[in-house]
């Protein structure tokens, strides 16, 4: 059986993982921006 036919499964798994990580990066950045700009973290100069 030709193993080349199953390469797409690996590609699919890696692509899915990359999408999840990308969403994680974006959500983390959004949360940090939100927290840093909250009134609690704004200090007068």
């Amino acid at each position, binding site marked *: 059986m030709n193993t080349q036919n199953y390469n797409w499964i690996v590609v699919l798994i890696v692509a899915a993982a990359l999408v999840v*990580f990308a969403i994680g990066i974006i*959500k983390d*950045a959004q949360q940090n921006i939100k*927290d840093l700009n909250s009134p609690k*973290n704004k200090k*007068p100069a």
Partner: protein
Amino acid sequence: MYVADRLPGSCSQRIWCFAISGDRQYIYGSNPTLMRKVNYYEYVWRAFKWTLLNGLLGLAPLIFMCMMNMMSSQDGFSREIHHLIEDGVHLFVCCALMGAVVVDFWLAGIPVAGIRLVFIYLMPVFVLVFLLFEYLLIFLRVAEAGNFYISSTTSLVVIGLSFVYCIFAKASLYANEDKKI
């Protein structure tokens, strides 16, 4: 009341002065982020510099050998350089950088949940497993040893993912450190 304190970890270079007057607290320091609206990209830029400089320091012996090879008339280090790269020394540096960030995050005790947890803690595990599978295949004699050229798929995936991880996770760590104050 006036307190001057030196913060641990990555904040050690900055001296912060706390002046507390009545029920209001003013924070003065060399960090511009607390003086105005916080820009997250400053943390990303700082994390990018951290990753790049640590990567260069980690690869310093290899870079030194390459420089010596370029400057000398003989190819004294050619074999050693090829040997190191084929064995994946650049991938060891990537793993060390990711490890530094994830251990810092863990020791800082910053609470993360959900998809952020997947990004912070599972992304380095994914990259590590991806790399270890390659070594497992070499051990099982399915793959050939010494195939970790810079242009190989494993190298490109590991370098790319670890670079992205280090920049964004370190930026997140910086942001969380500043939030704690």
